[in-house]
């Protein structure tokens, strides 16, 4: 085993870090967050630098990397709380598309990697409760889609949607889920955009007889692949955000005085920070584990990812909350950075199936004898 970055990985990491330092300081980001939450210029840079294809083979229009390269990128993005939908577009939708094996998918992936188009996956439904196979949106035999998708992150900036819709079976069956490519402005597609706590944008989207192009008749495996990649990248983002939040907090308590001493002299706060580092490193370990086994069989992968999400959620909540606590009052203000890390970290626990929901997946497996 080898946990050191190779040359290409180091290059990716350094280039993102350099860009972020120059273009994505806290104030710039904050303006963007209360603005429209997206910069076309940033996205162009992502495309030009090859970052949108960091996790793709060269024939798919990428840099020839894989999940590890993408995760390295995501970790750096996590450090600056990136607002643009790298993860929804360049990971979730992209990997889902590749998972369909559809003839036109590769072309679309190449276009995404080149920054020419943005596609997001419209799959989440209100009643899903973390069950990936939950689809009550239906598709008729004529391919017309009816139903409501929620929390479609990045949709306000997308031109196309991948929509999961049921062609047969019960709401939580794994079979009978078809995937369609639907233009964002197609007739019968109604979008309600909103802002999320971490400054990113999402939409609730109603489909009323909307028509799309069928790209997978039985799409669960593709969804599963998309979410598997999304989860490891989310964890990488989380690791980046936790690490930065930890160091910001460390630096703060080394200067802030109370009762005539700097806060770092208080043993309780020293230990609290030791626990923050510990939580961060537990997640990093779980992340490496899941990354290394991303190509194992789906059942095993699901358990690995569940364990990762459980750890990620727990760590993110703890690190986020303690980062604020150790800052005191200033941590609760919108104008200071640390609260924004808290927001992102809280959201990280809840998205793509919460930590609690993933814990249930593990528990059920144990009950079944795993």
């Amino acid at each position, binding site marked *: 085993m080898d946990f050191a970055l190779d040359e290409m990985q180091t290059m990716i990491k350094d280039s993102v870090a350099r860009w972020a330092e120059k273009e994505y300081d806290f104030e710039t980001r904050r303006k963007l967050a209360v603005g429209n939450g997206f910069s076309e210029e940033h996205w162009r840079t992502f495309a030009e630098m090859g970052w949108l294809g960091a996790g793709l083979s060269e024939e798919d229009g990428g840099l020839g990397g894989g999940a590890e390269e993408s995760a390295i990128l995501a970790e750096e993005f996590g450090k600056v709380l990136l607002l643009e939908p790298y993860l929804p577009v360049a990971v979730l939708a992209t990997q889902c598309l590749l998972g369909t094996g559809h003839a036109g998918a590769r072309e679309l992936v190449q276009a995404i990697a080149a920054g020419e188009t943005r596609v997001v996956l419209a799959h989440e439904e209100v*009643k*899903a*409760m973390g069950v990936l196979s939950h689809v009550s949106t239906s598709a008729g035999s004529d391919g017309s889609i009816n139903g409501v998708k929620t*929390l479609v992150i990045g949709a306000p900036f997308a031109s196309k949607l991948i929509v999961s819709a049921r062609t047969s079976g019960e709401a939580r069956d794994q079979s009978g889920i078809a995937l369609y490519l639907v233009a964002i402005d197609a007739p019968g597609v109604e979008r309600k955009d909103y802002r*999320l706590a971490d400054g990113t944008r999402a939409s609730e989207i109603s489909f009323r007889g909307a028509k799309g192009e069928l790209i997978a008749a039985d799409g669960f495996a593709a969804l599963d692949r998309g979410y598997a990649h999304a989860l490891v990248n989310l964890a990488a983002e989380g690791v980046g955000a936790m690490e930065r939040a930890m160091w910001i907090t460390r630096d703060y308590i080394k200067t802030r005085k*109370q009762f005539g001493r700097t806060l770092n002299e208080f043993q309780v706060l020293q230990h609290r920070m030791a626990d923050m580092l510990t939580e961060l490193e537990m997640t990093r370990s779980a992340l490496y584990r899941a990354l290394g086994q991303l190509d194992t069989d789906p059942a095993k992968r699901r358990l690995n990812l569940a364990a990762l999400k459980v750890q990620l959620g727990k760590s993110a909540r703890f690190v986020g909350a303690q980062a604020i606590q150790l800052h005191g009052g200033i941590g609760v*203000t*919108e104008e200071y950075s640390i*609260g924004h890390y808290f927001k992102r970290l809280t959201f990280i626990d809840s998205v793509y199936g919460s930590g609690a929901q993933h814990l249930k997946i593990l528990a059920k497996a144990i009950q079944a004898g795993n």
Partner: protein
Amino acid sequence: MKLQIDPKYDAFREEVRAWLKEALPADMAARTLQCYHTTIEDRRAWSKILAAKGWAGPAWPKQYGGPGWDEWQVMIFEEECYLAGTPMVDEAGFKLCAPVIWTFGTDEQKQRWLPPLLAGDQYWGQGFSEPNAGSDLASLSTRAVRDGDEYVINGTKIWTTDVHYADLIFCLVKTDPEAKQRGISFVIVDAKAPGVTIRPIIDIGEGHSLNEVFLDNVRIPADWLIGEENKGWGYGKLLLDNERAYSAEIPRNKRTLARLKKLAHETGMIEDEGFALRVAEAEADLSALEFMTLRAMAEKAGGTNFPVGSILKIRGSELLQKLGGLQVEALGPYGAVVYPHGATNDMPPGPAIGHGVLADFMYRRAVTIYGGSNEIQRTIIAKSYLEL
């Protein structure tokens, strides 16, 4: 031992509840129960309703216009208000400043300030914390210097809740910079006086209740100092001690738990056994905390060094944060959605009862920090009672 609340209070609770049902406008209650920060309009309107009924100062002695309730009645009243969804009133003025005035103030001061406060005509803000003091109030640096019939005040106050609505601000200031705690006085400042600048602090819930207040050569009449010069620390402390039985914020916790349950039933999350177990844990916590509050009320006069205020503060604030997190979780995919403060239409999708949940969850990160952080409370417990 008598471990039950006297049943005679049941009738009182019914009376309060019935009155609230009638007197509290439904739209006002709905807004409060969404749990954004209370708007000034709701606050003003509700204060007037309370004043008209004679219940504006529930804990005030009769001679100053209070209803003459005992502390159990005050507690019941507050609990029912919270559950019904009454807007927050001017807590700083009613609970913190007024008792200082009636206990240590001159007759003239009482006359000047108590009636308009009770009538809902004047609003108060509190200025204790300072940017470099945090939980360490003894190191205040705002100065008040006597100059003839006036004091001239210079300094900065921070985390002053709702001071942007305030007519008057009561502050702790240094009048003797050499002495530490003993050099502190309790003064009233006109919020509109020259030299007072208020800078809003937006909290991470995107709400505005906190402010920074800059005092730049602000002049107050000398008789706007309450009690004796250099004794303000003791006044503040005494009153905070009186309040210690309420540190767990039981009424707020109860309301929050009630809304959590409602929300979780509405979204169906309650059917998740793991989730229900965590709600149950919070409920068990609350029920113990509630009784600890009753113990603190009953033992108030005891004068022991038992640090019940610190225990209540720690566990009450942690519970509030836990309940907030569970509410966000109960909202499922709507948990991270920003519902703008004060907006009434064109809201993002998601159950209306949950619109203020995220903002509140964010804002309440402060509860384990303010009023002496939970770390400081633990030190108090260890030092005072356990003698460590």
